[in-house]
């Protein structure tokens, strides 16, 4: 891949005339922004935001969050790099941080620790990105092939948290049409609660075995959305059967496996639409200041859902 895109990548020796130049004995602490190429031989700490190319020369040191169109690193960078176009780590590069750019080239000899994401950096915080991804779905999915092809450059030992959501999100966008996505308010509620407190971890184990597609950390909105009916279904069950805490684990697993198996089938989107009718959203929006309600809301609907599944 590096071979293919090499011609379009900014060259390390910089064919264009570089005006701005941070000498080796100069240190800048603070925010640096601009619209022209910047060549750093010295030290820059803080934040860098350029609409052109940032060159980190072999003796240059960047301790900063960097946003630029292109970044060519021959020196040392500690911090996250966001590039609209491309990131190049040359053989002498030393980078600790996360890379985010549609195109990333790592030459042999470069030292790098961090994660790589090849989605265009169109949102600042990753949490915000995860939430906003529902509305950005159309534009994001355009970059899906790039992500697939290039993700192999990610180091296997690194923290893959940032890179992992990318494939999962792409899948989610491709598999579920726009009409059945959860409303934003619900999405925030689930994202804000990473693990359901009242839920036995045993309930999650079988689901993870069944639904292999999403890793434990990389489960983005798709997994949360998929998980929600299960969590909502089991607590109200005691009226029909024994309390969940007393029941043998295998029974619960069986139920969950049924859920997962049905969910993974093709009519998942239809089921989602049934489980979350528009009336529920309106009702839910009427009481936004009660966070507990948000979680408890799907219960009655899910119970009805549950019965349908067991009949199946």
């Amino acid at each position, binding site marked *: 891949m590096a071979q293919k895109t090499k011609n379009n990548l900014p060259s390390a020796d910089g064919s264009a005339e570089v005006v701005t130049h941070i*000498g*080796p004995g100069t240190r800048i602490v603070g925010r640096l922004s601009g619209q022209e190429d*910047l060549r750093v031989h010295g030290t820059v700490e803080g934040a860098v935001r350029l609409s052109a190319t940032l060159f980190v020369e072999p003796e240059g040191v960047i301790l900063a969050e960097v946003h630029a169109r292109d970044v060519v690193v021959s020196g040392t960078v500690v911090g996250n790099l966001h590039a609209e176009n491309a990131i190049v780590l040359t053989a002498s590069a030393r980078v600790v941080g996360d890379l985010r750019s549609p195109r990333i080239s790592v030459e042999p000899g470069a030292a790098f620790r961090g994660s790589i994401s090849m989605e265009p950096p169109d949102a600042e915080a990753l949490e915000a990105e995860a939430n906003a991804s529902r509305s950005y779905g159309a534009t994001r999915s355009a970059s899906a092939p790039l992500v697939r092809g290039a993700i192999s450059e990610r180091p296997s030992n690194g923290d893959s948290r940032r890179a992992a959501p990318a494939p999962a999100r792409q899948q989610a966008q491709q598999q579920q049409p726009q009409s059945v996505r959860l409303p934003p308010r619900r999405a925030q509620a689930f994202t804000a609660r990473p693990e359901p407190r009242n839920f036995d971890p045993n309930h999650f184990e079988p689901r993870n075995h069944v639904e292999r597609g999403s890793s434990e950390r990389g489960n983005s909105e798709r997994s949360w959305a998929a998980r929600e009916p299960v969590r909502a279904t089991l607590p109200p069950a005691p009226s029909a059967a024994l309390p969940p805490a007393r029941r043998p684990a295998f029974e619960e697993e069986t139920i969950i496996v049924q859920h997962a198996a049905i969910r993974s089938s093709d009519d998942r989107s239809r089921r989602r639409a049934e489980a979350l009718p528009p009336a529920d959203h309106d009702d839910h929006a009427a009481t936004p200041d009660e966070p507990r309600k948000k979680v408890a809301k799907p219960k009655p609907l899910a119970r009805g859902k549950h019965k349908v599944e067991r009949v199946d």
Partner: protein
Amino acid sequence: MATTVIGSSIVIDGEISGEEHLVVHGTVKGRINVRDSLVVENGGLVEATVETSSITVNGTVNGDISASERAELRPNSTVIGDIRAPRILIADGASFKGNVDMGG
């Protein structure tokens, strides 16, 4: 190349320190502390407290200047702030508002 150049579209909000020649075409806010000479070119804007050995201003400086050797305000330059330097040159046409301290 023992020099640092801040291009015309660059904005730095913070501190620049170093031992080498600094040329500012762009904007620097905060603090400049260089051992070597500082040149604020035409179009350059420095809103900072400046400490340097010698400073030459063609653009605008808004802040106190402390130079260990000399300070020179060229024509069309604008300086608002106190200047402290043993030798101070103010060219005809320069605009300056502030106190001058040549006491060393």
